[in-house]
């Protein structure tokens, strides 16, 4: 494990996307197809519907429920 980290020279270039390059063509194709099918999903923004739904959901938050959760 973590063999890519054991290099002592030229860390840059060994780092980001190293894994990507080491994938088999089949794995790369699978990745690309996943991204392609995902990127074709375009969700239109409907302002009035957004406002209405947001207000409905807001009512379901309990008074003591923290609005910001980490």
């Amino acid at each position, binding site marked *: 494990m973590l063999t890519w980290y054991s290099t002592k020279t030229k860390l840059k270039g060994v780092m*980001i996307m190293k894994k990507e390059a080491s994938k088999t063509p089949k794995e790369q194709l699978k990745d690309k197809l996943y991204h392609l099918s995902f990127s074709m999903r375009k969700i239109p923004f409907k302002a009035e519907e957004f406002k209405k739904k947001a207000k409905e959901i807001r009512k379901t938050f309990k008074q003591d429920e923290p609005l910001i959760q980490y």
Partner: protein
Amino acid sequence: MSLLYSTKLLSDLKNCDLFFDTNTFIAAISHPDIFTEFFQELKDRGCAFLTIPSVVFEFTRGSQTIEDFNNRSEFINNFASIYSIQVHESDFQELILVLQRLRGTISYTDFLLCGCLYKFPKSFLITENHKDFPLEILDRKYIITVDTEKDLRNYGIYQLSSDKFDKAALNILKGK
């Protein structure tokens, strides 16, 4: 009540992917009147709204009834695309090492959101959680201030910095 941000933000996020953290969804439902126009502006510029399954989990976990749960799920599904970043987790070994060194207590959701920025270096993240997204590897490109009657909240728009990331990784390699 108002929303304050640099106008450059809108042009910079043109045709970009923007990932949402749970707190931003909660802010959006808390102040739809403030956020709707802003989101509309982003959408008009081709910005894609994205999030990840664990954010959906966090957002829906306060549901009291099945109906509430369905409403919250439907809301996110109608508003943003859910990207299953966890399927790429095997690509994140470097990131895990760097993040665990920088933020030992980071939550799994925040780690996955960082993974989104790592996997798609041109994408952005919007969050109110500034302590778990380390500036040692990220750039805080913009700040959005929400001025309500009750309080003042700041949302950051973050992007991965390859230079910073390499430097942080190098420091780990050197044992710093």
